[in-house]
């Protein structure tokens, strides 16, 4: 080593989970969800200006489920650089698991007064198919909500990541996966109610589902889950694990030559992300009262990516804000000018990718600092756009690391 005068060198300590201001904001959010909203909805009389209508409770509850998906998308796309266009599938699977339980809870109160769900009676089935075996138990349902998306993510991810499928190819395959699942679930024979899916839920844990109390309970539960997942994501991202994920995004070959095997890293965050979406779906279904294969349509999965992009990738808070902004705009626009919603959504995606590479959060940070986007941030945004466009080699490695026939050899 070169002789140097050993001056005292302060190495940065591990950053806290949240800053002081962050914890304050977190606490405010927690109080808003768990105390203020229930009081405004249930205690404040309907005529009052402060009353929170049941419609708003339902809408915000729904958007909070979406926000969980956006958060999950941020972990896999924003931090690890893997764009999934099939996250709607995990969301729907979680929803279907919950839906099966809710169908069984209807009991004999369906139109056919049978023990079997109505659609099975309609199809003239005599007994429950095998995959409905565990649907009677709430505990088993909770396990399945986590296990089913996790298992599918594991099997799919293992093969995809082991084959080093990256960039746009991975996105297309995830998209194909959700379309395939949608077609499968559309079929009556699959045993998930075909294109009608599940609806007409009556009870959850024996308690009537369509009451103000139950709606509020689900709302609070969803909010608490969102905040809990946010903390989990913060912790993951703040650990060395999170920095390895970002390193994989920026220069995967360097990660490998540093002695890390990227496969378990990608696979683990992929599964965590899928499970988050599954839980979101399970919370979503009892609140909106329906689940059908439409939830698996490609457009739904793409929307999740848009929420994350609008809010700001690799920021965690951003995608949550993005989910609220876009879905708020959606519920307003689909009433005010329904025919223009999809144009608006498409336009939004173009504007964000062109002018707001770091999303709303990036814009706010930039304005607060009062200077243009920092060079690496812009470069990273550019790079991730390039990689979406099919460039599956990190440009920072460049032609050097590419062993293209003839080319890499002539270094």
């Amino acid at each position, binding site marked *: *080593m*070169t002789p*140097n005068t*050993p*001056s005292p*060198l*302060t*190495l*940065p300590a*591990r950053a806290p989970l949240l800053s002081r201001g962050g914890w304050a904001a977190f606490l405010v959010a927690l109080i808003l969800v768990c105390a203020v909203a229930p009081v405004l909805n249930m205690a404040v009389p309907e005529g009052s200006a402060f009353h929170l209508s049941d419609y708003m409770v339902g809408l915000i509850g729904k958007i909070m489920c979406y926000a969980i998906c956006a958060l999950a998308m941020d972990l896999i796309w924003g931090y690890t650089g893997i764009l999934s266009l099939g996250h709607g599938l995990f969301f729907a699977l979680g929803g279907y698991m919950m839906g099966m339980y809710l169908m069984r809870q209807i009991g004999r109160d369906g139109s056919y007064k049978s023990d079997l769900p109505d659609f099975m009676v309609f199809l003239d089935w005599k007994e429950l198919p095998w995959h409905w075996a565990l649907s009677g138990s709430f505990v088993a349902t909770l396990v399945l909500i986590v296990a089913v998306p996790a298992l599918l993510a594991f099997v799919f991810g293992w093969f995809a990541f082991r084959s080093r499928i990256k960039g746009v190819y991975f996105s297309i395959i995830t998209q194909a996966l959700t379309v395939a699942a949608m077609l499968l679930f559309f079929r009556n024979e699959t045993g998930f109610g075909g294109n009608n899916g599940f609806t007409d839920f009556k009870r959850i844990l024996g308690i009537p589902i369509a009451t103000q109390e139950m709606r509020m309970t689900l709302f609070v539960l969803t909010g608490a889950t969102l905040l809990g997942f946010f903390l989990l994501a913060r912790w*993951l991202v703040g*650990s*060395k*694990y999170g*920095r*390895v994920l*970002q*390193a994989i*995004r*920026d*220069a995967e*070959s*360097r*990660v*490998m*030559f*540093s*002695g*890390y*095997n*990227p496969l*378990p*890293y990608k696979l*683990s965050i992929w599964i965590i992300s899928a499970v988050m979406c599954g839980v979101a779906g399970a919370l979503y279904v009892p609140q909106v009262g329906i689940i059908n294969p439409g939830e698996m349509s490609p457009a739904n999965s793409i929307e999740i990516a848009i929420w994350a992009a609008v809010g700001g990738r690799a920021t965690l808070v951003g995608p949550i804000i993005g989910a609220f902004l876009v879905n708020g705009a959606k519920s307003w626009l689909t009433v005010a000018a329904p025919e223009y919603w999809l144009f608006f959504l498409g336009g939004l995606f173009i504007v964000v990718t062109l002018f707001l590479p770091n999303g709303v959060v990036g814009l706010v940070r930039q304005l607060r600092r009062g200077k243009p986007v*920092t*060079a*690496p*941030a812009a*470069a*990273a945004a550019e790079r991730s756009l390039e990689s979406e466009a099919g460039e599956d080699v990190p440009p*920072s*490695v*460049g032609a*050097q*690391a590419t*062993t*293209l*026939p*003839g080319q*890499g*050899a*002539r*270094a």
Partner: protein
Amino acid sequence: MTPDLMEQGAQRLSEHSARAARGKTESGGRAASYGRVAEAGVDLTHGRILYLEDVNVSFDGFKAINGLNLDIAPGELRCIIGPNGAGKTTMMDIITGKTRPDSGTVYFGSTIDLLRHNEPQIAQLGIGRKFQKPTVFEQLTVFENLELALKTDKRVKPSMFFTLDSAQKDRLAQVLRTIHLADHVNRLAGLLSHGQKQWLEIGMLLMQDPKLLLLDEPVAGMTDEETARTAELFLSLKGQHSLMVVEHDMHFIRAIAGEQGTVTVLADGSVLAEGTIDQVQADERVIEVYLGR
């Protein structure tokens, strides 16, 4: 058992221990014989840390590596020169597991067959590599870049719960000073100058504590002063680590190889010449294909 036989037995035993006491010979002596227990890690008893024999690779009929034989001694600083397309980078790709050769043998020490391992495994065995174009994690700080490279358990769960202990912090601080980036600890790596990125990447290699360093054009784009400091650093590493340096800068080569160091010239995927820098520079064939008249 007769007293005679006992006498002979005792004699053989003393002869054996006398032979053993004479110690290792140049080739590894008795320590390198067949009937010994190989130690864990890199086995250097045969005096070679890296050994390539008759390696061949072709891409679509183009023979990038053509019957390459090369070996490096522990602690040696080996310089590799050669024209573009000579196969220098492909050779590094083969050693680090990025490219699989069509045929040939690649050994790390006497016992580790590198062709049986993938990139992360080879990195963990103790081979570090610096790319031609500096490759650092641009969105992470200098500190985080070095922390990621640190030699430690690199599986998922240990990474989640990882914290630096004081010995690791000392090591990190030491490397930061060595690569002259102590004032840029919290700077994003993407904001560093080209030369600083090169140094950071070298620092990341040092954090890995590799036994063998492969350095692909480490001083490309560096100022003269930075180049001089890099040469100084490499010379200080020589001895404890083995280094393989690919460079085009003949002044730099002369600075690190000295009068006695071995310089290998690659051309068309195989070794064209090998010797001290003066021998190589005087070689007609080398002048023909690489140095020019």
